[in-house]
């Protein structure tokens, strides 16, 4: 359960990224966050795992007040929240398996952390995660040899290996072609259903958002202007979110 109570987030330069946010997201929901670039979608997502600090209000994730956490507690919170990025953010020089294995680092004893030695059990878990996203055969391939879609799946496997309750996805399909984007969206939907993980996703492709997500939150200029079922989103709602602008159809 994620709860925003009158949340405001102001950047150090004075710009208000989020204003007056009140929203509740239950465990297991699949939420798409849509809006113009710079509207505050990324800020919204990044507040949840304390990559950004909120400046006013309360943000409660699974009964803990995120803003009051310090040092080790923040890392504890982040262990339970997976994050997926537009540019995958993998170590490109390493193999897919090694990238996934990093998920286990915080729980390892110091000497294994330093030397980067992983147990058989950890390797089995990492390979299982790769299998869940269908790229088990690429486990020993260096990430820079993989296609964009495969790289995003490695990132997804890395997050799955963490077994988080919540997955935050920041434009996960923005740098993928339409076919691959659909596959990756399907992966998210499957994980959301099978493992009951909450998925909160920023997305520019409105058609994909409506097809896969169950709930849509529209953000404009740092404020929530729409919050409802994906099936209830109409052209009027979209033009409201996009400030009168019609979303451009994806090619």
């Amino acid at each position: 359960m994620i709860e925003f109570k009158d949340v405001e987030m102001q950047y150090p330069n004075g710009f208000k990224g989020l204003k007056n946010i009140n929203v509740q997201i239950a465990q297991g929901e699949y939420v798409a966050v849509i809006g113009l670039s710079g509207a505050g979608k990324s800020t919204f997502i990044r507040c949840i795992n304390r990559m950004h600090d909120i400046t006013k209000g309360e943000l409660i994730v699974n009964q803990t007040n995120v803003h009051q956490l310090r040092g080790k507690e923040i890392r504890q919170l982040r262990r339970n929240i997976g994050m997926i990025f537009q540019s995958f953010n993998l170590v490109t020089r390493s193999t897919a398996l090694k990238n996934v294995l990093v998920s286990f680092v915080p729980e390892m004893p110091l000497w294994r952390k330093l030397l980067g030695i992983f147990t058989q059990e950890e390797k089995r878990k990492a390979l299982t995660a790769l299998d869940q996203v269908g790229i088990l055969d690429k486990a020993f391939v260096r990430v820079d040899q993989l296609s964009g879609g495969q790289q995003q799946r490695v990132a997804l496997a890395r997050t799955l290996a963490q077994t988080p309750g919540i997955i935050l996805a920041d434009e996960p399909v923005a740098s993928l072609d339409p076919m691959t984007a659909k596959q990756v969206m399907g992966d998210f939907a499957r994980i959301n259903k099978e493992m009951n993980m909450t998925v909160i996703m920023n997305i520019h492709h409105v058609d994909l958002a409506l097809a896969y997500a169950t709930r849509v939150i529209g953000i404009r200029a740092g404020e929530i202007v729409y919050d409802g079922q994906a099936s209830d989103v109409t052209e009027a709602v979209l033009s409201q979110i996009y400030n009168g602008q019609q979303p451009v159809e994806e090619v």
Partner: protein
Amino acid sequence: MNFNVLAKRHITLQNGKVVVMKRSTTPLIILIGLILIYFSVQITGFNMEAIIKRIDQFFVILKEMMQPNFSYTTKLWQPLFDTIKMSLLGSILGAIVAVPIAFCASSNIIKNRFIVISSKFFLSLLRTLPTLIVALMATFIFGLGTMAGFIAIFLFTIAYVGKLLYEQIENADMKAYEAMHSMGLTTVQSFRYAILPQVLPNYLSTTLFCFEGNVRYASILGYVGAGGIGLLLNENLGWRNYANVGMILVMLIVTVFIIETISEHFRKKLM
């Protein structure tokens, strides 16, 4: 270069158009160069006569060196290995110690500006100290011998590898690092798993290159009593035993060549 503004030449064409041409600055530059050479000759006490008279002595020494004393080799192995040992140990330990210092000096990893600036200042301070002077000071502290040479090389390696490493770290791709932070890894853990794999090949290559240079430096360090083959070089030059000097130089050239070839081979593989 604008000191020729006054010396413009006007050329009038037949149809009355006037073209302004800048005079070439080359003669002036040559003149200044000649004046500077004249003064430097005066200041340094350069003596052409001495060169012409004494130049044959240079060839005498060279000729004696050209007939190296091969029987001297038996006495050379130990100091030669001392030289290699102190540069190897100094390079390895120096490169290891350079990692945490470079970590602290990287502005993209450490957000505390005071730590970053003081680490960078420490590294540039170490780099400014000439190795020979450090070795000399080390002989006062640790006594004559290879220990002093090791310290000098150790400190130089920290400065050299540390500087290049923090520049590598600052230019590294931070995306994976950000992802690891979002997964709940600490700064040190994220550095170990996101940045280190990126900079490792370059770091090893730098260390090898530094080791190459250190073998050459180490052979001179004996001059200030810091052990190794330089000590013998100094002695034999003092005794004017040029055949022995020649032998030492031959050994050094061969050793440095072998080490450079090996290091170059591995550095190419790392790239």
